[in-house]
């Protein structure tokens, strides 16, 4: 016996789709089985969570999550609230905030795919000035691998068509491989970085400029200039604008470094 299906809307909201990130779609499990859905104990507690879930600005989301955590420290909704906070920090490019909120999310929901992917992507960007960089990179790798494992186990709501899920899963797997490639590059393991980034860039059903850009850079570092040229040009085509600028700059550098190979076109 069913009420009209609203589970997907609910699930997507409670997983933080309001942050409009592709990876937000990953976390179906808590609400797929109604018996497993986190329960508010009072109407006021739910009101407070819904304010987080429907907040339009990242700054507001973060403020409201902090208030919620302080007022309802044992709420079953705290895990999803911290996930919303993680994504809000990501929107604001606040890596330290992502790491802090992401860690809190995983303490309550260790297999939250959205957060695992967000952290795996964020950590390699945050290791530069850290004394424990190697340990951090290990953690990012573990998160990405765990996300890949979880993606094979996710039970998807019926509201998501098979075609849509195939695309979503491909996009999320690409994110995990991109993170693994980034980690490998930071460790100086360029062949591994190349294979992971190839997996990300070429198997993503929605090709991403950032993945081709990273791949192009790694190709160039490995002396694979033709491939680097192709990947960087693809990155410039795909954008967005920030990636386009980076790719064009890298192409120029590539041309300057290898004049004897003939000009590599940047347009």
């Amino acid at each position: 016996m069913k009420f009209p299906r609203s589970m997907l809307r609910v699930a997507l909201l409670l997983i933080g789709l309001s942050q409009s990130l592709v990876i937000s779609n990953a976390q179906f499990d808590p609400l797929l089985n109604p018996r497993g859905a986190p329960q508010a104990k009072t109407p006021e507690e739910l009101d407070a969570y819904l304010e987080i879930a429907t907040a339009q600005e990242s700054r507001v989301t973060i403020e409201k999550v902090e208030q919620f955590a302080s007022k309802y420290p044992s709420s079953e909704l705290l895990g999803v609230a911290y996930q919303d906070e993680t994504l809000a920090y990501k929107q604001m490019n606040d890596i330290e905030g992502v790491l802090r909120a992401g860690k809190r999310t995983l303490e309550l929901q260790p297999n939250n795919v959205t957060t695992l992917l967000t952290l795996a992507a964020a950590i390699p960007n945050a290791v530069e000035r850290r004394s424990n960089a190697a340990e951090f990179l290990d953690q990012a790798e573990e998160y990405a691998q765990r996300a890949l494992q979880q993606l094979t186990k996710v039970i998807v709501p019926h509201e998501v068509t098979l075609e849509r899920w195939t695309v979503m899963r491909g996009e999320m797997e690409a994110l995990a491989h991109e993170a693994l490639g980034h980690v490998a590059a930071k460790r100086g393991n360029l062949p591994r970085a190349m294979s992971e980034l190839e997996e990300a860039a070429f198997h993503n059903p929605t090709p991403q400029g950032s993945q081709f850009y990273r791949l192009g850079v790694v190709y160039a570092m490995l002396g694979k200039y033709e491939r680097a040229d192709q990947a960087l040009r693809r990155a410039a085509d795909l954008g967005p604008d920030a990636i386009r600028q980076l790719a064009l700059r890298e192409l120029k550098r590539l041309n300057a470094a290898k004049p004897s190979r003939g000009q590599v076109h940047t347009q």
Partner: protein
Amino acid sequence: MVGASFAQAPAGTRTVDPVPESIYLKGHPATLPVSLSVLIHQQRWAEAAELAEKFTLEHPRDSTGFYWLGVARQKLHDPVRAIQALRSAERLGLGTPAFHIVLGIAYYNLHQFVLFDEQMQMTIRSEPFRYEPYYYLGIYYEDVLNRWEHALELFHRAAELEPDDPRSMYGAGYCLEALGKRDEAAKTYEESIRLIERNSGRFSGPHQGMARLLLDTDPYKALPFAHKALELEPSSPSNHVILAKAYERVGRLTEAVEELQLAAYLSPTDPSPRFALARVYEKLGRSEAAGSERQMFEKLTRIYGP
């Protein structure tokens, strides 16, 4: 004794209007625009939501506007914003038993069962002779908790309070079927069918239930029930599946395939029609088609669960 194992019962055979008209707020406050009432009457919910939202901005102290905004959003399958509007109405003083039912249903749709239960109990305390809270609690105990015995008690209580409601009666039959009391289930489905016929209702549950019960013991008797269920609710995939199973049992395999293909089309992520299709294709000697359906069944089961 009617046959057929309960395991054959397709999940989600019943649908429930998220806010039945019987629990709408009665009366029309003078402040509420007539055009909003017209839109509600015509069930033009998107426009009603827009107008109600505008009204709440202009009259932020009027609980009625928030109430109708909540109802419209619920009809539009937006339980989150429905709850937000209904809570605003509650804070402004609205608190009739019918209101608590509407708010409770919104909580249910968001899988907030603690709060759902609280709203239903509040209604029972203030108006113990209303059938709706028992009916919705019955759905909860049956569908979410699978506590058939208690769900049966709740559906029986709802049916006592509203003897003309075929859905409460059907709910009781469904629980009896789940409890293996097939003869009693059949009698209850028959009673529910009589209520539907008396009121010219468009609810297919009990016809489908009867067809399910008769599939193994007397598939020829199951067929007219399955046909009637489909006639009443043609867009229900489970009605196509039951009809296909009846066709299969009486050897009308080509028609079974057609019904199962329709079920798969209407519910493309449900693995069960694929499994049945594979079996019927095997019987028809179409091994390649059977293999392809079996593969699809396994894929869908892996992704969407059994």
